[in-house]
């Protein structure tokens, strides 16, 4: 599994598609979809928290994917709302755990990939 992170609109999906040769139909925001690319992990974490469930339980299913895309959501002023803070932290912690297990971690910035782990460093 390659974890792909970066801010909004920085080219995560475009990079994953060109790196893999997959097309958009191979990507889905739903964890149960039988496709190799999961998009929007940050939104999945939010939906999981909204249901009162532990996002850490997503780990095994996420490791089954070839690419997991997660928007960086922890780099702003700390929000006043405790639920927003919790979401940012749970997303960050899950990404740290995924990065430990991942064969590659890539950060996209202005469409440019930086390999933080594995790949063509």
């Amino acid at each position: 599994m390659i974890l792909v992170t970066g801010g909004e609109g920085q080219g995560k999906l475009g990079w994953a598609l060109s790196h893999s040769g997959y097309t958009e139909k191979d990507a889905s925001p739903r964890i149960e979809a039988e496709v190799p690319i999961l998009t929007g992990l940050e939104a999945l974490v939010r939906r999981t928290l909204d249901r009162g469930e532990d996002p850490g339980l997503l780990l095994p299913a996420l490791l089954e994917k070839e690419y997991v895309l997660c928007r960086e959501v922890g780099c702003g002023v700390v929000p006043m709302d405790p639920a927003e803070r919790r979401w940012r932290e749970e997303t960050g912690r899950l990404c740290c755990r995924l990065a430990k297990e991942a064969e590659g971690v890539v950060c996209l910035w202005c469409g440019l990939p930086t390999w933080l782990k594995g790949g063509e460093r």
Partner: protein
Amino acid sequence: MVILLLGGSASGKSGWAEGFAAALARQNGGPLLYLATMAAEDEESRRRVLRHRELRSGKGFTTVERATGLAGLELPSGAAVLVEDLGNLCANELFAPEGGGEQAVLLGLEHLRRRAAHLVLVGNEVFSDGENRSGGTADHLRLLARTQAACAAWAEAAGTVICGIPLWRKRPAESWFEELVKEAEPE
């Protein structure tokens, strides 16, 4: 040496900062200090403090709590000092009744830089959420940005931790630094 590590929330920056401070203290056999700048005034802050304390336990840190006035802090000689974090320090000096503003932040850090054998600074990556802020928040962000830029200028190594992995913006090219990074890597 001075190391500056930024990161977003739950990015894994603390674990790396602890690893660097502990590794540097092992190298020179000096004391290992954790300088906590957060004034824990509510339940959530207290839980945060407890969580960090647990993560640090067994690593040999002596914890010093100091929200403001770092320039007046007495340090044992040869210490490796971890400061966590610059966002809280700037907020305290700006908004606490006993705070001394920008000057106190910079004098405090300058003092630590001169007295500590090694200084590891944890900062915050908070400048990219697209919001236009005003008032106290804007003052805080500007002070934090200036403070972190000053620290980055002093630092031999400076970078951002992303998903638990450091991305260096500045670092020594020599192999000893590579070794230090290996030794500092959190479990």
